[in-house]
């Protein structure tokens, strides 16, 4: 498997605070990886470095090319800041990520792309529902659909299942797993939920004490996480 993300001596400080120091890791094409670690350990910071929203203090993070083009990353952030009365239906929310063009309206092919991801995420019937009225699970699927619209090589879910009930968690993760497998995407799943990470990822990254460690997801147990409160 070829590497799509490589970190070399990746170091991040915020002022006096060392978030992490000299991380070295690789994400390879087609892998399903979970990122675990206790609150405040820098999981979201690491994600932001991977997608390029933050610059490292030192060291580097390389986003490799895939099929002679820049790798595309679909990122579903943990927190969303959308007005409760925003004039967005589920379909128009998803379509926000259609990409730039000199004209505001959607072309026929763009509309069918939106329709395809809505279908894929089981939102076809709900496409005209205002986002504000959607349930937690439906919203999460809409966020996923929006990220999928860019046709990503790497899909990053940041605590996508937090605040959901058990059934809804399983439902969205089954869906993610199916899409990622079908489309040969790479998955980085940031989570606190060790059951889900065991079930849906092959390998884990554990962030603790400014360092990263990795292993098979099957090995995630109390021993692996000794001293780490997750």
């Amino acid at each position, binding site marked *: 498997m070829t590497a799509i993300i490589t970190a070399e001596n990746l170091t991040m400080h915020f002022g006096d605070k060392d978030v992490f120091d000299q991380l070295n890791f690789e994400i390879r094409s087609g892998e399903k990886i979970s990122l675990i670690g206790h609150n405040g350990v820098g999981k979201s910071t690491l994600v932001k470095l991977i997608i390029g*929203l933050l610059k490292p203090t030192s060291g580097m993070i390389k986003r490799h090319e895939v099929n002679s083009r820049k790798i595309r990353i679909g*990122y579903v*952030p943990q927190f969303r800041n959308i007005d409760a009365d*925003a004039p967005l239906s589920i379909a128009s*929310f998803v379509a*926000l*990520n259609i990409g730039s063009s000199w004209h505001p309206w959607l072309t026929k092919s763009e509309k069918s792309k939106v329709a395809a991801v809505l279908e894929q995420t089981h939102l076809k019937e709900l496409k005209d529902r205002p986002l504000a009225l959607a349930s937690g699970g439906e919203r999460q699927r809409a966020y996923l659909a929006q990220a999928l619209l860019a046709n990503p090589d790497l899909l990053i879910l940041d605590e996508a299942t937090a605040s959901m009930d058990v059934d809804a968690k399983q439902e969205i993760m089954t869906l993610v797993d199916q899409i990622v497998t079908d489309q040969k995407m790479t998955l980085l799943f940031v989570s606190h939920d060790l059951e889900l990470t065991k079930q849906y990822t092959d390998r884990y990254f554990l962030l603790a004490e400014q360092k990263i460690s990795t292993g098979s997801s099957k090995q995630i147990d109390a021993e692996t996480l000794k001293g780490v409160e997750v």
Partner: protein
Amino acid sequence: MFAFDFMRHAFVASTFIALTCGIIGVFVVARELSFLTHMLSEIGFAGASFAAFASISPLVGMLAFTLTSSALISGLSVEKARRESTISAVSSLFIGSGILFLALANKSSKYATQILFGSIIGISLQGVWQLVILSLVVLLTIWIVFRPLMFDSFDPVGAKANGVRTQLISVIFLILLAVSVSVGAQIVGSMLVFILMTIPASTAKALGRSIKQLLLISVATALLGVWLGIWLAYITNWPATFFIAVIEVAFYLVALLIQRQRA
């Protein structure tokens, strides 16, 4: 009423201003920039006063001041509460200097009233052309950046996560806002330009269910407001700004009532 040149000028100018403010306003409301818009209009007042003092055109003075301050503000990306305090402080400074420039310029109080509250009949043909061209530049720019602007305005977190250059979009939007405020102030005055920037868009927010509807309602109520306002000013000889303000507020109240009925 169209027999008079000044009425035709007022009509054309206000139509373009309403179009521009109606559309920009939807994004002002979505991006929660009403307070900043208010500040820009005060800065516009200072700019126009400076123009009187320096004997240049008020539009040029306004543009110079609002664009400079927009550029300065765009560097500030602090949290909201602090931003609002900064805005209050900057407003006070600009109102103060506006008053100083007016005093130094030795202009009659009529000039001050005109800058502050608008002068619908004072627009020359050249003035109309300036406004139309500036409005078209603003509208065309919005057309080009519409998709990223919409993404960033309605889902800022998602836009950033998906690689939209949100900082650039913010700067472009502030520049457009500065130009629109300067243009709008020519007709409704700098103190009340934010009527057209915020109330039609708020009316639209209460009624519209999609972004397209928001834009249509905002533009329609802005247009109706200025057209009716000018007509009422013509027949009553009262200030057009007064009528525009009253009509826009009336639309907004009706929209709130409808929204309550729906809920």
